[in-house]
């Protein structure tokens, strides 16, 4: 169950319990702001500021008498009984004054109960009910009237007209006046009026936009033309005013027979209505408005009314030039969406002549392209072409562009997204509604294995446009834009209900489809052809459909849909996700075959899990920042639509659309930290201030641990280390060289590491990691880095997966820690020997430089050589993250080593003036010379990545052991692993629990080694500098090389065993001393670190 907002809520309560109650973001219900916007179809930047009960009074015929100009208030009073009165709520937002008779209450202070009432039945009025949605900039004047019955009465005069309205006589402009009486306390009324005043002042700035937008409205043309006609020929100039663009239909004819559609009559009725009730921006919705829409809009007015009822008009008003600007901005650019659009341009409503012309196709191209730029996540989806083509018959490009935005963002959420989850979800919703309302038909469908959605999916996806004959589809659209998505369901249900009997006879998909096909073809026929009653005979099947849809299925409300959506959402999303996972894993290419399906599945989950969680954290951080301003809205969209809204927190979810598919280095670190325990840092950064809560949530089954709040930027997972080795791995896997990894990269990378069981290829893989220039040689620096990496990788042993549960830390069994200590030492000494041998058998780069003289000149202080060698095993600069908490302490302990001769030779290697390198064969030889390293490369390294079985708790006890280096050597023997596992309680993230003396010491050996190494590194650098100062003459030393070659041979013959023994023993001794000495201080320090982390843990609980 995916319920992020609950988590957010919980998190907030943890941090600040009072917040959870007061902020809208903690409210799982839709926020009022969102309901408000949805009800009045306002743009997303509007919020309800003021709300008051009011009565709207409209005089029935005031515009017909508009010539009289000012209507004085006493006159108004007298007319009152004749006018239409509406009681409702008056709302004020930043830029709008809205009135609706539909119950609503959006203010934060208002009671919750009423807040969702508009999602119920609207009786055909649409959610906005009767009333108006007035942009404040369209208000010309507000007067306060004296009234007996109400304390406050306002007379509002609107602009009601385009640019010419101003220059024109009041007859055409000043006519519209509304009277609103406020019912409320004096204070409430005054507050409202103050708000209104402020809004009006602000609104002045928008007037230009309004003029521009309104001038493109057909209604404005229609009414002003009308006024001019009555004024006679006196105004010739006005006549030439351009007819606004009312879509391709103007040129290519509107579909259907205008006479049969009674278009002229409809226009006449609308003209009357508009004259009395304002037009476009100032339109008032009275019951006639809805009736006029139900009977079908007249062709030329259709586009504009769609705009108004859907609210896209307000978007256009807000940014009238967005469309042209978007096109201009991206002109010439290419995208996948554009390719896809081009493919379909020629095949969008091809039967309509307008779309066989360049003009029509050009418009279609521009609208689809512009939208794909404004919403790149959606881009282009087939079916959009059909919908937009249909819109373009009735509206201009700009209008269609905004209407498409409203469709995709609000009316059809997720329908056209990358995964089309909205479409799939609504199909499930539709199916469940059929099951509920027509159980017999549903049983029949189930029994005969007919899948309903194969029939109904195109209905929803293309809004019935390619299912019904166009003229009927447009009638459906008329209502759809007014009343919202529920209309699609109502129509769909009605179709099935009407054809119920025939459908019950259909036993297969084919028959089922053909029944419906023939029904759609006969929509124009009489529904009751044999009826005696001529009136009844005149009722067409389409009319019958509308009646059934809106009467019989009146119970299907927006609320029903929302509820059903949230009910089915998870199942649908899971389906999509498992499909996406399946497909994506299958398409990973041949390399991936080297990993098991389980491993691939695990990698997939981990990969997207990490990306998702990172995104969540980023998102939530951002939310935190703008919580008050924004988060309420976002979650609210989710409820209203039943699906997470555009910018919702759930964005990263695969099924909801495009989520990040590329992993940057930080994400990669986090990814590794969940897979390999060496990738977890030793020194977690201290928790930030407790306000930065970031609830993380994982939805992938595998990685689901119950996490709640965590304070680190890494969520509640372990904080990853940042080591050079990881960076190298990242670079190596980043085959596309774009600094990010795709799933493909990661899988291929793992296939190389884990996919082979061949020690040789593992060794060369490792070698190549450090062969920066690919010339088959690794230089001194590289050797040092390799050894450092080996230490880094081995510092927690190999068999284990990390266990971060606090309980694991407390677990410790009593089996002998000494053994482990020995193993650690063994590994360290192995590495020490490794370095020594590397240098011993390295090839000099320029033999000229390698001289005895250089040996003489160079000596690293007075330190014993052997000590130096040891230090060298980890000398490269440690990044601040991996650095142990201890400061660097110059190592002054120098236990003497007896092996002078060897040391000398090796010391030569230390000479920075002696560039040298090892080749792969040398490297291989050196590795194979040591049993422990050999085992490491044979299995330890690849098994240090725990894939699919990692998170299983059953493994935890046996695999959570730390610092058991010997495990590397015995990877194959489960017995050893188990024993080792039993011997050590899992401690997480390198934090040594207090009082774990020996364990702490062991860790200290490692960290100490690293520290000492850093010191040597420093000294080496100093030596280097010193040497730079002395200009030195190199001398040849070919003999040396010869000698080494000879040794190579020996080594290969396995003559080296003795050597190994010696080296190990010595190194062990050397290490042991500083380890135990420093151990005490170290343990103290680490204790404090671990205490800090404990606090975190407790807090999380």
């Amino acid at each position, binding site marked *: 169950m995916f319920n992020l907002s609950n988590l957010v809520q919980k998190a907030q309560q943890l941090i600040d319990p009072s917040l959870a109650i007061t902020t809208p973001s903690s409210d799982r219900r839709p926020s009022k702001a969102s309901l408000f916007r949805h009800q009045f179809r306002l743009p997303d930047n509007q919020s309800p500021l003021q709300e008051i009960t009011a009565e709207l009074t409209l005089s029935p015929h005031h515009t017909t008498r508009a010539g009289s100009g000012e209507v004085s208030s006493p006159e108004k009073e007298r007319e009152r009984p004749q006018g239409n009165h509406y009681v409702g709520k008056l709302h004020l937002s930043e830029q709008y004054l809205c009135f609706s008779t539909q119950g609503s209450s959006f203010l934060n202070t208002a009671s919750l109960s009423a807040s969702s009432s508009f999602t119920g039945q609207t009786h055909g009025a649409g959610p906005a009910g009767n009333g108006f949605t007035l942009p404040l900039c369209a208000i010309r004047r507000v007067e306060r009237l004296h009234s007996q019955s109400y304390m406050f009465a306002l007379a509002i005069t609107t602009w009601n007209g385009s640019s010419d309205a101003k220059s024109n006589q009041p007859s055409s402009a000043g006519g519209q006046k509304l009277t609103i009486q406020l019912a409320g306390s004096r204070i409430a009324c005054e507050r409202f009026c103050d708000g209104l005043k402020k809004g009006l002042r602000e609104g002045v700035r928008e007037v230009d936009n309004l003029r521009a937008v309104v001038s493109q409205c057909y209604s404005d043309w229609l009414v002003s033309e009308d006024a001019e006609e009555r004024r006679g020929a006196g105004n010739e100039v006005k006549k030439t005013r351009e007819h606004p663009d009312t879509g391709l239909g103007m040129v290519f004819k509107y579909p259907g027979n205008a006479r049969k559609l009674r278009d002229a009559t409809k226009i006449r009725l609308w003209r009357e209505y508009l004259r009395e009730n304002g037009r476009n921006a100032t339109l008032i919705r009275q019951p006639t408005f809805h009736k006029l829409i139900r009977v079908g809009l007249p062709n030329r007015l259709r586009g504009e009314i769609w705009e108004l009822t859907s609210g896209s008009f307000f978007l256009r008003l807000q940014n009238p030039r967005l469309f042209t600007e978007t096109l201009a901005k991206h002109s010439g650019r290419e995208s996948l969406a554009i390719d*896809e659009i081009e*493919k*379909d341009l*020629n*095949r*969008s*409503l*091809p039967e309509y002549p307008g779309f066989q012309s360049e003009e029509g196709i050009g418009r279609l191209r521009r609208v689809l392209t512009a939208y794909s730029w404004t919403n790149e996540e959606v881009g282009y*989806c*087939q*079916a959009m*072409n*059909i919908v937009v083509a249909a819109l373009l018959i009735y509206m201009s490009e700009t209008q269609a562009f905004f209407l498409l935005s409203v469709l995709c963002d609000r009316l059809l959420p997720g329908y056209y*997204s*990358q*995964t*089309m989850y909205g*479409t*799939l979800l609504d199909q499930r919703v539709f199916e469940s509604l059929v099951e509920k309302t027509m159980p017999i038909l549903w049983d029949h469908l189930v029994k005969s*294995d007919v*899948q309903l*959605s*194969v029939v109904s*999916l*195109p209905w929803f*996806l*293309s809004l019935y446009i*390619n299912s019904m004959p166009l003229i009927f589809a447009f009638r459906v659209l008329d209502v759809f834009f007014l009343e919202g998505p529920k209309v699609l369901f109502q129509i769909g249900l009605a179709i099935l209900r009407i054809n119920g009997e025939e459908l019950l006879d259909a*036993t*297969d*998909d*084919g028959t089922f*489809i053909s029944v419906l096909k023939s029904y759609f073809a006969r929509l124009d026929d009489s529904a009751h052809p044999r009826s005696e009653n001529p009136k009844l005979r005149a009722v067409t099947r389409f009319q019958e459909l509308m009646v059934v849809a809106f009467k019989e299925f009146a119970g299907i409300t927006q609320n029903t849909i929302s509820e059903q959506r949230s009910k089915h959402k998870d199942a649908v999303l899971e*389906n*999509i996700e498992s*499909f*996406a996972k*399946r*497909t994506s894993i*299958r*398409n990973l290419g041949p390399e991936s075959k080297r990993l098991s399906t389980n491993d691939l599945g695990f990698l997939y989950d981990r990969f997207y899990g990490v990306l998702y969680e990172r995104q969540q954290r980023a998102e939530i951080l951002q939310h935190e920042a703008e919580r008050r301003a924004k988060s309420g809205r976002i979650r609210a969209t989710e409820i209203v639509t039943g699906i997470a809204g555009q910018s919702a927190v759930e964005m990263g979810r695969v099924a909801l659309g495009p989520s990040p598919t590329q992993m940057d280095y930080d994400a990669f670190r986090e990814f590794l930290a969940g897979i390999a325990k060496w990738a977890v840092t030793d020194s977690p950064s201290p928790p930030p201030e407790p306000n930065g809560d970031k609830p993380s949530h994982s939805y992938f089954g595998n990685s689901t641990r119950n996490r709640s709040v965590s304070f680190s930027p890494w969520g509640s997972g372990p904080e990853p280390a940042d080591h050079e080795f990881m960076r190298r791995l990242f670079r190596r896997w980043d085959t596309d060289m774009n600094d990010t990894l795709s799933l493909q990269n990661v899988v291929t990378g793992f296939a190389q590491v884990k996919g082979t069981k061949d020690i040789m290829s593992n060794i060369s893989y490792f070698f190549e990691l450090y062969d920066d220039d690919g010339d088959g040689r690794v230089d001194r620096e590289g050797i040092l880095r390799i050894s450092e990496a080996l230490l880094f990788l081995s510092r927690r042993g190999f068999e284990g997966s990390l266990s971060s549960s606090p309980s694991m830390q407390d677990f410790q069994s009593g089996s002998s820690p000494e053994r482990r200590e020995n193993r650690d030492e063994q590994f360290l000494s192995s590495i020490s020997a490794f370095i020594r041998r590397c240098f011993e058998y390295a090839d000099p780069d320029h033999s000229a430089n390698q001289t005895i003289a250089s040996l003489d000149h160079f000596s690293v202080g007075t330190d014993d050589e052997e000590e130096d060698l040891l230090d060298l095993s980890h000398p490269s600069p440690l990044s601040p993250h991996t650095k142990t908490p201890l400061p660097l302490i110059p190592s002054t302990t120098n236990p003497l080593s007896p092996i002078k001769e060897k040391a000398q030779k090796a010391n030569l290697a230390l000479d920075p003036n002696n560039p040298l390198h090892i080749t792969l064969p040398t490297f291989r030889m050196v590795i194979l010379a040591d049993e422990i390293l050999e085992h490491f490369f044979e299995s330890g390294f690849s098994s240090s990545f725990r894939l699919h079985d990692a998170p299983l708790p059953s493994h935890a006890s046996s695999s959570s052991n730390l610092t058991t280096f010997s495990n590397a050597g015995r990877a194959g023997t489960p017995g050893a692993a188990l024993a080792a596992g039993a011997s050590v309680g899992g401690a997480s993230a390198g934090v040594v629990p207090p009082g774990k003396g020996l364990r702490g010491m062991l860790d200290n050996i490692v960290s100490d080694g690293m520290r000492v190494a850093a010191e040597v590194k420093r000294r080496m650098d100093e030596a280097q500098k010193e040497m730079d100062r002395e200009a030195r003459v190199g001398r040849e030393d070919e003999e040396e090389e010869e000698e080494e070659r000879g040794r190579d041979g020996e080594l290969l013959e396995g003559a080296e065993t003795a050597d190994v023994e010696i080296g190990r023993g010595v190194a062990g001794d050397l290490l042991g001393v500083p380890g135990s000495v420093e151990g005490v201080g170290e343990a103290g320090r680490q204790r404090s670190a671990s205490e800090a982390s404990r606090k975190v843990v407790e807090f999380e609980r």
Partner: protein
Amino acid sequence: MADPGAASAPKPSSSVKLVLLGEAAVGKSSLVMRFVNNDFQENKEPTIGAAFLTQKCNLPTRTIKFEIWDTAGQERFASLAPMYYRNAQAALVVYDITKASSLIKAQHWVAELQRQASPGIVIALVGNKFDLASTTAPSDATSNGDDADATEEQDEEGAETDARKVPTKTAKAYADEEGLLFFETSAKTGMNVTEVFTAIANAIPETSLKGSRGVGGQTSLGRQEDSARVNLTSGRDAAGPNGGCAC
């Protein structure tokens, strides 16, 4: 293909669910249109969701009624596909021989079908738009009407600007490896279209055939010819000669 001669007067008839899959605009719908209506439309509306059509195919021993699910090709519709290939006994995976990426997509579909669709599904790989290739490719199957290409770009008749991007060999090799039927077709000229469907009809194992629906009540059929089971490979070979579609 074996013919036990069991057919009495009304040939046994059975329906086969067939699904078309493939990248957008490779000509899936056009192939179906050619097969069902013997017609070709230059600008066919993209399929939304899926289209459903039926067509009969007469074999010597039986009649196969194809219930064809023609699916939408755009990538994002892929998640709808399982809905359509559910219970399908045959699939036509179509690519465009002038577009290399479409073969990759086709291979993905084949993989998806092999894993997720009903076991034993008969899959045919079809390279469409043969009319756009210069006429060198499949030597035997050149029943194409060259004149039908007249409307296409001029390069075609002139010098060899072969639009073909997928060599027959490549696709054929892949098809063989996966055990698929393989054809190159042109929905525009009609080349090889009925052959594809006939080959599929022949390759459907008798056992997987359901009894007929509606047509002349042969309830017992379908089982009587168990001996005549056709395996996939023979089906592929039998493709050309055996064609007898009633369309």
